[in-house]
C-alpha cells in the first residue's frame, strides 16, 4: 500500500469541491461574524455610528460592574437548572412508563400530545400563557377560584419573587415532548432490550431495571437531551421578551434580553457585543461534551 499520488489526490479534491465549497463559504461567513462580534466587544462602539477604536476590556469592566449583569447571570442559572433537571427527570419517567405499561394507541396519542408544542413558537406559547397567567381575569386564577381554591391563586409573572419560575414552567411545558421523544428512541436499541429482558428474567424490579440497566446505558441519549435543553435555556429570549420583558423591574431579566436592550435600545454596542461573547462562551462550554460524543459516533 502506498499513499495516493499527488494527481489522484488532486482529482479527489476536485471531485469533492462542488459539495464542500458552498458549505465552507457559509461557515466562513458565520465564523467571520463571530470574530467580528468578539472584536466589537473590545471596541469603544457606543451610539448608532460604528466606532471600532480598540478599547481593550473597558466594556467588560463596565459589564461586571453592573448589578443587572449579575441579576441576569443569576436568573440564567435558574433557567439552566430548573429548565433542564425537572424536564429530563420527568421525560425519563414518561418515556419509561410508556415503554413498560402503555397500550399502542395510548403511546401514539401521548407522543402527539406532548410533542405538538415543539412545532409552536415561543411567541405563540408566550401569548397563550400570558393569558393563562393573567392575575386578574386570567384562566388559571379563574379556575382556582371556581374550584374554591382562592388561596392557591397567585400573581404568577407579576410577582417579582416567583416570576422567573412561572416563565421556566412554560419552557418545561414546551420542551418535555422533545425530551421524551429522544429518550424513548434511545431505549430502543437491540442490545438494551436484551439486557432489560435478562434482568427481568433475573427477577429485578422495574424501578431497579430503570436505575441499574436503562439509565447507565442511555447516557448518550441523556447527554443529547441535557445539552439541547441547556443550550435552549441559556439562549432564552422570546419567552421573556413576550411575557414579561424582563419585568417586574429586572426580576425576570436574562443575558439574552439585556444583550438586545443594551445593543438596540441603549446603543451600547460594545457592551452588547460583550454580553453576546459571554453567552457564546457559556454555550461553547455546554456543547463541548456533546461535540466529543457526536464526533465519536460519526467517525467510529
Amino acid at each position, binding site marked *: 500500500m502506498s499513499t495516493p499520488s499527488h494527481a489522484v489526490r488532486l482529482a479527489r479534491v476536485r471531485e469533492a469541491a462542488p459539495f464542500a465549497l458552498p458549505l465552507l463559504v457559509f*461557515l466562513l461567513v*458565520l465564523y467571520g461574524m463571530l470574530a467580528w462580534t468578539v472584536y466589537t466587544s473590545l471596541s469603544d462602539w457606543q451610539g448608532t455610528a460604528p466606532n471600532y477604536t480598540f478599547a481593550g476590556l473597558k466594556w467588560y469592566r463596565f459589564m461586571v460592574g453592573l448589578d443587572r449583569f449579575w441579576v441576569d447571570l443569576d436568573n440564567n442559572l435558574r433557567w439552566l437548572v430548573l429548565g433542564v433537571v425537572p424536564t429530563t427527570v420527568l421525560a425519563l419517567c414518561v418515556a419509561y412508563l410508556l415503554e413498560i405499561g402503555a397500550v399502542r394507541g395510548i403511546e401514539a396519542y401521548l407522543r402527539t400530545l406532548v410533542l405538538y408544542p415543539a412545532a409552536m413558537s415561543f*411567541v405563540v406559547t408566550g401569548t397563550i400563557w400570558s393569558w393563562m397567567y393573567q392575575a386578574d381575569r386570567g384562566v388559571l386564577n379563574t379556575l382556582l377560584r371556581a374550584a374554591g381554591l382562592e388561596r392557591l391563586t397567585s400573581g404568577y409573572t407579576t410577582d417579582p419573587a416567583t416570576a422567573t419560575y412561572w416563565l421556566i414552567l412554560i419552557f418545561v411545558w414546551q420542551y418535555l415532548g422533545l425530551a421524551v421523544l429522544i429518550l424513548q428512541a434511545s431505549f430502543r436499541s437491540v442490545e438494551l432490550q436484551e439486557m432489560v429482558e435478562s434482568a427481568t428474567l433475573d427477577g429485578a424490579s422495574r424501578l431497579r431495571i430503570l436505575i441499574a440497566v436503562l439509565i447507565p446505558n442511555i447516557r448518550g441519549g441523556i447527554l*443529547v437531551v441535557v445539552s439541547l435543553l441547556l443550550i435552549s435555556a441559556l439562549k432564552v429570549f422570546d419567552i421573556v421578551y413576550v411575557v414579561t420583558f424582563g419585568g417586574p423591574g429586572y426580576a425576570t431579566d436574562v443575558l439574552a434580553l439585556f444583550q*438586545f436592550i443594551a445593543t438596540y435600545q441603549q446603543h451600547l454596542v460594545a457592551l452588547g457585543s460583550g454580553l453576546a461573547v459571554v*453567552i457564546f462562551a457559556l454555550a461553547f462550554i455546554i456543547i463541548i461534551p456533546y461535540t466529543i460524543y*457526536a464526533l465519536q459516533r460519526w467517525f467510529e
Partner: protein
Amino acid sequence: MRLRLTPLRALVLVMVAALSVVYILPVYVMMVTSLKTPLEITQRQYLLPSGNLQFGNFATALRLVFPSLVNSSVISLTVTALSVFVGGLGGYFLARFRWPVTKVLFVLLAIALYLPYQAVLIPLVRLMATTRLALTHFGLILSYLILNVPLAAILMATFFFSVPRELEESAQVDGASRLQIFFRIVSVVALPGYASTAILVFIQVWNEFLLALTLVTPYTTTIQVKLNDIKGSYVALYNLQMAAALITVLVPLTFFLFLGKYFIRGILAGALKG
C-alpha cells in the same frame, strides 16, 4: 390476554390523564377565547364555548396579520429551499468524503448548529443594514440561510449515511460523475430525508423571533413579530390575541399533524447522530 388494571396500568392512566389536562387546556383555552366577545372575557366565561361564536374575530385578526403572513411564507419557503440545497451538497461531502479535514469541518458545524444567534446578531444586522438588504426580504432570507445551512448539512449527512454505497458504485462504473450520481441517485433515494430537513428548517425559520425583531422593517415584518405587536397593542382584547396566535401556529401545526413522521425523524436524526 385481557386488560386488567394492574398498579402499573393505573399509574400510566394517571399520567396520561394529567398530561392530557396540562397539554390540552392551553390550546382549548386559545380556541375558545378566540371565539368570544370582549364582554364574555371581562365576565370570565372561558371554559364553555359561547353560544354566540365570534368568527368575526378571525376576520379581524387575519386583516391585521395578512401582510406578515405573506412575508413569513416567502421568507420561510425560500430559506427552506436554499438551505436544503446547500445543506444537501455539504451533507454529501460529510457523509462520503471521510478525510481528516472532514472532522474539523464537523466540529465547526456542530458548534454552529447550536450557536446562540446573539453571537452573530450585531455583525449580521450591521451587514444587512449597510448593504440595504434589510429593506427587502433578502435581508432575512440571507441571514436565516447562513444560520440554517449547518443544521441542514448535518441532517442531510445523517440521511445520506443510510443510502447504500453499492448504488453509487455501479453508477460510477458506468462513468457517471459524482454530481450526476448525487442528483440522479443519492438525492432521489434520500428524498424522505430532504422532507424531514425541509420541515425542520421551515418550522425553525417560521418561528424565529430575535432576528426578525431586530431586522424589522414595515415591508418585512414576519408573523411572529406581528403577533407580538398585536399582543402589545390590544392588551385587553384576548379574543383577538388568541385568534392571531391560532393563525400564526396554523402552518407549523399543520405540518406537524400531517407530516409528523418526517418531523420526528428529523429531530431524531439531528439529536442522536449529529
